[in-house]
C-alpha cells in the first residue's frame, strides 16, 4: 500500500509539473495581460501606470525567465502572488478550497450513493415499471444541461416554494456558530450539490444497472442460487459488490468532469469556490492565480482518482492482496 501510494505520488507530481508548464504557455498565449485589464478597469491609465504595473508583476521580463521563476517557486510549493488581489495565490485558493471540496465531495457522494442505490433497484426490478421509471429519469437527467437544471431548481425550490436558499455558501451576517452554522451551510449546499450530483448520478445509475445485469449472468451468481440463497441476499452480497468495480473505475475517470462541472454550478449558485476564482482569474488575466487554480484543481482530480483507486483496492481483493 505504501509503495502504491508513493508511486502514485511521484506520478502525480510529475503530472502536476507538466500541467504547470504547459498551462503557463497556454495562458500567456491569451490576448491582453493583467496590467492592461487593471488599467482598463481603473477607467483611466497612462503609459507610466502600465509600466509600473508590468514591472511590479515581473511581466517586463522575457517569458522563459518568467517561467523559470514560476516553476522554481512552484516546486517550493509557492504559487506566487495574485497580481490583482495582491495576496498570495495559495491563501486565496485555500480560502476558497473548502467550499469547492465540500461541493464536489458531496456531489460525488450523493451521485455515487444515490446512483448505485437507484441503479441497483432498477436492476433488481428489471423490466418492471420502477425500472423503467428509474432508467427514464436517469436518461433525462443525463440529457439535461446542468445550468438549465440549476436555474430551474432555483426557480422552483428557492423562489416559488422558498424552501431552500438559492445562492451563497451561508447566510451572511446571521452570526451562526457551531451546529447552527453547519446546518445553515448544509441548507445552502443542498441545491448546488444536488444539481451537480444529478447528472453524475444519472451516469452511475445507468452504469450500475448495466453492470449488475451483466454480473447476474455470471457463474458465481448461479452458484449462489444453487446454495439456496434468497434473491435479496444474492443481489446485495454477490451481484452488487462485483458490479461496483466498473462503477468505481468510471467514477474515478469522471472526477475531471465533476470538478469542471463545479465551475458552472458555482457560477449559478454564487458558491465561493475555486471554480469561480478560476473564471475571474481568467477574465482578469491573473496568470499566477489562474495557474494556481489549475494546479490545485488538477491535484483535486488526482485526489479523486486516488480515492477511487483506494476504494477499488478495498473492494477488490485481487488487487489488494496481490501487491
Amino acid at each position: 500500500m505504501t509503495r502504491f501510494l508513493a508511486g502514485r505520488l511521484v506520478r502525480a507530481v510529475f503530472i502536476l509539473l507538466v500541467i504547470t508548464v504547459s498551462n503557463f504557455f497556454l495562458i500567456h498565449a491569451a490576448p491582453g495581460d493583467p496590467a492592461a485589464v487593471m488599467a482598463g478597469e481603473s477607467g483611466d491609465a497612462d503609459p507610466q501606470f502600465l509600466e509600473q504595473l508590468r514591472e511590479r508583476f515581473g511581466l517586463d521580463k522575457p517569458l522563459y525567465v518568467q517561467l523559470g521563476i514560476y516553476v522554481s517557486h512552484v516546486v517550493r510549493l509557492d504559487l506566487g502572488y495574485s497580481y490583482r488581489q495582491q495576496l498570495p495565490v495559495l491563501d486565496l485558493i485555500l480560502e476558497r478550497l473548502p467550499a469547492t471540496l465540500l461541493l464536489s465531495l458531496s456531489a460525488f457522494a450523493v451521485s455515487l450513493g444515490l446512483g448505485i442505490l437507484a441503479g441497483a433497484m432498477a436492476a433488481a426490478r428489471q423490466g418492471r415499471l420502477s425500472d423503467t421509471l428509474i432508467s427514464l429519469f436517469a436518461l433525462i437527467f443525463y440529457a439535461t444541461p446542468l445550468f438549465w437544471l440549476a436555474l430551474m431548481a432555483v426557480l422552483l425550490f428557492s423562489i416559488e416554494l422558498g424552501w431552500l436558499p438559492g445562492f451563497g455558501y451561508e447566510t451572511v451576517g446571521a452570526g451562526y456558530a457551531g451546529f447552527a452554522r453547519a446546518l445553515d451551510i448544509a441548507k445552502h449546499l443542498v441545491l448546488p450539490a444536488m444539481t451537480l450530483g444529478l447528472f453524475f448520478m444519472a451516469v452511475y445509475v445507468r452504469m450500475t444497472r448495466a453492470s449488475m445485469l451483466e454480473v447476474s449472468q455470471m457463474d458465481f451468481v448461479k452458484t449462489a442460487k444453487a446454495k439456496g440463497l434468497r434473491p435479496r441476499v444474492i443481489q446485495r452480497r454477490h451481484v452488487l459488490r462485483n458490479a461496483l468495480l466498473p462503477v468505481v473505475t468510471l467514477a474515478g475517470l469522471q472526477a475531471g468532469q465533476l470538478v469542471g462541472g463545479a465551475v458552472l454550478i458555482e457560477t449559478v449558485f454564487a458558491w465561493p469556490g475555486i471554480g469561480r476564482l478560476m473564471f475571474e482569474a481568467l477574465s482578469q488575466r491573473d496568470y499566477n492565480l489562474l495557474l494556481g487554480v489549475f494546479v490545485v484543481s488538477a491535484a483535486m482530480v488526482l485526489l479523486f482518482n486516488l480515492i477511487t483507486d483506494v476504494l477499488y483496492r478495498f473492494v477488490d481483493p485481487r488487487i489488494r492482496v496481490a501487491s
Partner: protein
Amino acid sequence: MTEFWKRFSKHRGAVAGLVILFLIVLLAVLAPFLFPKSPWAMVQRPFLPPFENATYFLGTDTMGRDLASGLAHGAYVSLLVGLVSTVVSLLIGIPIGALAGYFGGIVDDVLMRFTELFQSVPSFALAVVLVAIFQPSITSIVVAIAIVSWPPVARLLRGEVMSLKSRDFVDAAVLSGQRSFTIIWRQILPNTLSPIIVLASMMVAAAILVESALSFMGLGDANVMSWGYIIGAGRTVIRQAWWVSFFPGVAILLTVLALNLVGEGLNDALNPRLSRKGRQA
C-alpha cells in the same frame, strides 16, 4: 444488416430516438427554406409569448427575434458543432489509443501519461480557458470540445486494441507476414468500429451539452445562432420570458436524449456481448 435492424428495432427507445433525431436533422436541413429570414432579424415586438401569433408561434426573444427560426437554424449549428468536434476528437483519440494499445510498453506508457494529463485537468475548465484564450468562435469551440473529449476515445481504443491484440486472428495476421500498420488498419480497427460508433453517438450528445454550457458562460460564437446561445441569451430573462430558454432547452434535451437512445440501440445491435461498457469512461 437485417440482423442489425432486427436487434436495433427491438430496443423501442432506440427507435424513438432515431425518429426524433431524424426530425431534428430534417429541421436543421430545411431551416433555410422554412425560415428564409435571418434568425437575427427583429421581426416582432420583444417578449411575444408563444402561441399568440400564428406566424411566430414560439414567440419572440428579448429583441423580437423569431424563436422558431432561431431554433431551426440553431439545430443546424448545434448538430454541426457536436458532429465536427466528435470527428476531431476521434481523429485525435483513435490513433493515440490504437498505437498505445498495439505497441504497449514504452509507447503505451508515454501516450497514456499524455492522456492522463488531459484527464487530470477539469475538462470543462480547460474548455473554458481554451475558448477564452483563442477567443470565442465556432472553430475555437469545436477545437476546445475536441481537445477535452478525446481521452475517453483513446482509453476505449487502447482497451479494445489490447484485447483484440491478444486474439488469435491478430497472431495469425502477424504470421502471415502482414505489417503492423496493415494489421492495425485491417485486422484491429474494423473490430473496434462498433464501440467507437456507440461512443461517438454519445459524444455528439455530450458535445452539444458542452457547447451550450460554454454559451451559458458567455463564450459562444456571437455570429451563429445555436441553441446554447439562445439559452445563454434567454437565461437573464427566464423570469419574464420562460419560453426563450425553455424551447431550446427542450430541443437540447430531446437531441441529447435521442442520441443516447440511438447509442444504446447501436450498442445492443452492434455488440451484444461487448455491451455495457462505461458510457463516457
